[in-house]
């Protein structure tokens, strides 16, 4: 009996192999993408953790105040494993004619530090006998093609000093070479990191800061220890307290890989949902068409349980096949993705581990999803009474005007073929819902990916076309005074120049603090736009400060609230009010008008601020003339005495746009998956619908209705369902995309969903094309139908 059941199952599946193949394909895709995303996520997290463990990545970094006193306190705190201190200096470097910002991080010259060690990738570690040499962080070395034995110039109080390169290193702090949380998208041509002997760095006066680093002991109460250390740091006057999670590089990387975690959730829902729907449709139809057979079996004493298990097995078997294949594919894909990712980011420690439990979970999810879906028709089969053996198969649908016709009476004037299309589309409500669901799921997948693409493009445009109106930022030695401003403004290729003040700032309120950067512009600045909620442009207020909108929630701030701005590099602290919030895609900054900080505008207007002893502008913003040769202008500006480095704002934009190329690949893949999902579902429902109407359709063919006419009728029914799914699908897709994008928003990036008009069209077109393609096999079957047999057989 078991053998015969199995043979029947094989033949039932074989006769409908296209439909059951749809179950296999959707479960395969769902499990493969789940496994790939989840395993890649796990591999990357493990790789980072391995890197951090190997290098003793700091759990806490404290800067400013009495660092030595804090370090002593930390050493005495239970739960603390290691404590170290170091010097960090912001300066400028030169390679050939090119100048850029450089951060010099102090290391003990004779041995690796206790915390935040580096991995030497080429050359050797620092030399205690040659304290002037440096290690280059790998991104800097790679961009400028520098290695052991090369040299570069670094700006010191003694001028441009040539320093030898001992080696190239990777650091856990700069796996993503972010300058700060506000400058996460920093290019190596504009900013680099070098590691130098800490002692000599401390001797370089001005511009530097001391930092204390702490790692916690394994098994300690991390939350309690961190809270205590934070309090101690504040008591010691710290200006910046950064946990590992908030460390810019680490935070950026985790935001990035969080996407894999999101996808590991989204893909199985979409694809396994589709597999479940498909299984429900196919097995329901099979049960319906075999009711008299099932009744015969029951009349002959076959138990309900055997019938239930048989029909459940029809769904579980293809799901298991797809699940196993998907698990294997997912494992392979995860390895590829992990290697590509760590290679692209130059992460020196790559851990790729098999995750058999993830594979098993994927297979179980696939089988469970389809089993749940197959349960209803299987129970229906088990409940068929023996009397069914006497009856023929009843046609699906009792007939009646469609809901659309009842809602729109003018539809009653449609020709009979039109009514056939409308009513045929809706004759099986369950199947219609599933077809519509397929359209909705496909649209969600497509819109989420296209929405990500549009959002990124719009935000880049907003950031670099609307908000940042300068073409270059010039870092100068000393003050950006009026003379220098005029000199820059009159340089060929420069249309305008303005002085501004850029400085580190800590925004403090009663509920917390946030380290950011303050930029103070001339009140009438033309170099920066301030966009409030809804993208409306506003003036820079003469009083108060504008803050990035992320601080509204982060610090519980509202317009008018009092805040304290610590400016550690200026040795000042200001009490002021929140004048408003700005929505900027990149970073969470503070903006004020130059009189607020006491720095007078360098225009010839009347001074309204405090005396000339107040902090002076230290940066010049330049806008190029239309059509100017950017590279040539940059070179000329770098040659101006007093200009230490020129950062081209649009080089970052260009680099971001180049990265979009990878994004297009991702979006292309999502479009294919979305189309495959729609194809699988609509193919199944369409094939089932045609098979149950074989007699009806064959009769029309026998009556002389042409293949093309029949194809148009059948396609029309399909199209009605797809169109019904478009509106709810687009709405749900938009909402899902908005939630998905918002999950990536933080103080570093703001991802408000933007969807271009063309994207709606592309999404709809992709799904329509998939729907049209999915019906081709079924239409081909209509054309190949054995009319003689079909007109005499009841529905299959």
């Amino acid at each position, binding site marked *: 009996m078991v053998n015969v059941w199995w043979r029947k199952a094989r033949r039932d599946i074989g006769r409908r192999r296209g439909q059951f193949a749809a179950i296999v394909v959707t479960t395969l895709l769902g499990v493969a993408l789940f496994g790939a995303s989840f395993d890649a996520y796990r591999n990357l997290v493990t790789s980072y953790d391995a890197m951090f463990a190997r290098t003793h990545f700091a759990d806490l970094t404290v800067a400013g105040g009495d660092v030595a006193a804090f370090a002593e306190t930390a050493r005495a705190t239970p739960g603390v494993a290691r404590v170290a201190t170091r010097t960090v200096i912001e300066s400028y470097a030169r390679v050939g004619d090119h100048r850029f910002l450089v951060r010099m991080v102090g290391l003990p010259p004779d041995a690796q530090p206790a915390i935040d060690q580096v991995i030497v990738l080429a050359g050797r570690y620092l030399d205690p006998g040659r304290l002037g040499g440096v290690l280059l962080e790998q991104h800097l070395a790679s961009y400028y093609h520098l290695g052991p034995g090369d040299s570069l110039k670094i700006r010191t109080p003694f001028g441009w000093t040539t320093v030898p390169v001992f080696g190239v290193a990777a650091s856990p702090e700069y796996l993503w070479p972010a300058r700060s949380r506000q400058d996460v998208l920093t290019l190596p041509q504009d900013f680099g990191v070098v590691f130098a002997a800490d002692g000599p760095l401390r001797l370089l006066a001005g511009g530097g800061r001391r930092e204390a680093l702490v790692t916690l002991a394994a098994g300690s109460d991390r939350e309690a220890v961190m809270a205590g250390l934070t309090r101690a740091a504040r008591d010691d006057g710290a200006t910046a307290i950064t946990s590992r999670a908030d460390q810019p590089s680490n935070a950026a990387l985790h935001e990035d890989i969080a996407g894999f975690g999101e996808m590991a959730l989204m893909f199985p829902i979409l694809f396994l949902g589709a597999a479940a729907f498909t299984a429900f449709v196919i097995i329901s139809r099979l049960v319906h068409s075999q009711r008299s057979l099932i009744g015969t079996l029951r009349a002959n004493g076959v138990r309900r349980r055997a019938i239930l298990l048989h029909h459940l097995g029809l769904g579980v078997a293809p799901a298991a096949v797809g699940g196993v294949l998907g698990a294997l594919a997912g494992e392979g894909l995860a390895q590829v993705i992990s290697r590509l990712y760590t290679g692209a980011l130059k992460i020196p420690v790559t851990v790729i581990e098999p995750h058999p439990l993830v594979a098993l979970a994927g297979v179980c999810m696939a089988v469970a999803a389809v089993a749940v879906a197959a349960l209803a028709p299987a129970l229906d089969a088990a409940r068929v009474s023996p009397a069914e053996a006497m009856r023929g198969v009843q046609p699906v649908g*009792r*007939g009646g005007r469609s809901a659309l016709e009842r809602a729109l009476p003018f539809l009653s004037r449609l020709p009979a*073929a039109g009514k056939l299309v409308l009513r045929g589309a809706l004759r099986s409500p369950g199947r219609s819902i599933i077809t519509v669901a397929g359209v909705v799921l496909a649209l969600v997948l497509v819109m989420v990916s296209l929405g990500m693409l549009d959002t990124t493009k719009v935000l880049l445009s907003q950031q670099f076309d609307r908000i940042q109106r300068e073409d270059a930022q010039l870092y100068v030695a000393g003050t950006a005074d009026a003379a220098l401003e005029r000199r820059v403004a009159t340089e060929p290729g420069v249309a305008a120049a303005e002085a501004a003040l850029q400085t580190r700032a800590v925004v403090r309120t009663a509920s917390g603090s946030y380290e950011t950067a303050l930029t103070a512009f001339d009140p009438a600045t033309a170099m920066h736009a301030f966009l409030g909620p809804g993208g409306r442009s506003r003036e820079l207020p003469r009083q108060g400060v504008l803050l990035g909108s992320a601080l509204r929630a982060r610090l519980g701030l509202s317009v008018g609230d009092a805040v304290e701005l610590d400016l550690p590099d200026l040795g000042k602290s200001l009490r002021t009010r929140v004048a408003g919030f700005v929505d900027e895609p990149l970073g969470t900054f503070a903006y004020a008008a130059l009189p607020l900080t006491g720095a007078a505008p360098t225009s010839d207007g009347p001074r309204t601020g405090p005396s000339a002893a107040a902090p002076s502008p230290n940066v010049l913003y330049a806008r190029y003339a239309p059509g100017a040769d950017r590279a040539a202008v940059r070179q000329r500006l770098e040659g101006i005495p007093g200009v230490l480095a020129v950062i081209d704002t649009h080089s970052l934009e260009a680099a971001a746009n180049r990265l979009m190329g990878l994004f297009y690949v991702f979006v292309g893949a999502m479009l294919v998956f979305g189309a495959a999902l729609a194809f699988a579902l609509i193919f199944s429902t369409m094939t089932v619908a045609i098979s149950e109407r074989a*007699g009806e359709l064959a009769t*029309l063919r026998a*009556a002389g209705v*042409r293949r093309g006419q029949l194809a148009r009728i059948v396609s029309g029914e399909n199209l009605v369902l797809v169109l019904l799914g478009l509106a709810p699908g687009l709405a749900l897709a938009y909402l899902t995309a908005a939630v998905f994008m918002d999950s990536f928003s933080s103080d570093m990036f703001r991802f408000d969903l933007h969807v271009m008009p063309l994207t709606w069209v592309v999404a709809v077109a992709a799904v329509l094309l998939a729907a049209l393609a999915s019906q081709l096999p079924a239409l081909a079957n209509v054309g190949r139908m054995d009319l003689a047999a079909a*007109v*005499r057989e009841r529905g299959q």
Partner: protein
Amino acid sequence: MTHAPQDRPFASTGALSLHGVTKTYDRGAVPVRALRNVELELPAGAFTVVLGPSGSGKTTLLNVVGGIDRPSGGQVLVDGEDIAGLGERALTEYRRRTVGFVFQLFNLVPTLTALENVTLIAELTGGGGDARQVLERVGLQDRLDHFPAALSGGEQQRVAIARALAKRPALLLCDEPTGALDLDTGRSVLGLLRRLNREQALTTVIVTHNSAIASMADRVVRMRSGEVVASEAVADPVEAERVTW
């Protein structure tokens, strides 16, 4: 209201001639010879019953004459035109302009009313028939807006007949038209077919295993094992109401 042949869209009379017609199905190891060298002449306007037990080839004969299956050999002449060698498209056109089918299981579209089922064929084949008139002719003037589920078996078969007639065909081919009906309903359907045959000079072929129906035919063709074993005219066909089984 009657339709003469010249009123039909394609001016066909429905005269049938089969010469040496064979049909073999390749099903696994043993080929099935469903028709063996069939020779048959059916004059235009005749009401013919094809009788035979299950497997005699009568249905295959109907399929071949109706153009929904191609013979393996021989000639099938309809008004002198050999349809045996026609391609798929040509056969579709042949069925469109010449043939009306009535099947045992009615095969109505369940989501369309009686009127819409008939109108559908008229629209799609350009037959030009008035669906309401045709339905009145078959006695369903009061059931136009009913869906098949709300019609009795006999009424459904009448709709199927009306649907076949809507194209004004020359040939009406019926496969066990009373097979799913009780005696009284079956008689009324047969009576309708007979009346239409007379009114429209509609060549009508009914395939059945029910020998009682033979008595109402103009000609009876008997088949066995794929061969025509007899083809004889009926001297005094009886009216449908007197047929019993």
